[in-house]
């Protein structure tokens, strides 16, 4: 009887340890193909997370208030909240989604990248915490010369 229990426990432990590994390797291109085609931030966020609400002020978004060159806008996302994924959206381009990060457990969230924007619009950064809560930050970026091949 003990042996049976022991084996059962072992199998359960293996299964439990396998789950996070498969969750980490989430390719949003494959799992959420619809969000990449949405024109508005609200639509794309709904496709990804199912809600557009979030606690504000927990994710630090560093972006220029006035970007002279819309072809290369430096964006920095920083937070101490334990997020499982975070994504960037804007309303200036034909489609809204810019990038979606899958965050491995225990990672430092401090990501830098450069994006393109055709015109002035809001940039939304929204993420889902491991506690199941949503976090978001919105900042307006003014663009004087549009990027995106304009």
């Amino acid at each position, binding site marked *: 009887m003990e042996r049976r229990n022991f084996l059962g426990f072992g199998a359960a432990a293996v299964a439990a340890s396998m789950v996070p590994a498969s969750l*980490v*390797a*989430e*390719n*949003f*291109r494959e799992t959420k193909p619809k969000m*990449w085609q949405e024109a508005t931030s609200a639509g794309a966020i709904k496709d990804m997370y199912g809600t557009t609400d979030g606690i504000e002020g927990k994710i630090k978004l560093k972006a220029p208030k006035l970007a002279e060159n819309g*072809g*290369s*806008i430096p964006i920095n996302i920083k937070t101490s909240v334990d997020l499982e994924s975070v994504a960037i959206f*804007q309303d200036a*381009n*034909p*489609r809204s*989604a*810019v*990038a*979606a*990060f*899958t*965050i*491995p457990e*225990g*990672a*430092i969230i*401090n*990501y*830098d*990248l*450069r*994006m*393109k*924007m055709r015109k002035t619009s809001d940039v939304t950064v929204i993420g889902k915490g491991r506690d199941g809560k949503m976090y978001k930050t919105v900042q307006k970026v003014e663009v004087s010369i549009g*990027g*995106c*091949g304009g």
Partner: protein
Amino acid sequence: MKLKAKMKKDIAKVKVMFKSPMAGPEEAEKKKIKPEFIAHIIGKVGGKTVYEVSTSGFISKNPLFKFQFKGAKKGDMLEMTVTDNNGKVTSESKKIK
């Protein structure tokens, strides 16, 4: 791809620059080229994922990404794998300094 990884105390700091026109369908039409942009980037150390991002054509041309992670040490190999929208896969490994 240009890849630099450096340890600072127990944190690995990585800078990586990719060569890609990052042209979505609209932009490609204007420039009369085929749409080509990076769709997915993944960074691994010893088989463990340390960085993963799915991207669209609205990242800048020849994009530069910076990120940090814990749990690596000097001499570990960092492997970056990039998939573009046409399914082309490029990967490069570099020792963490």
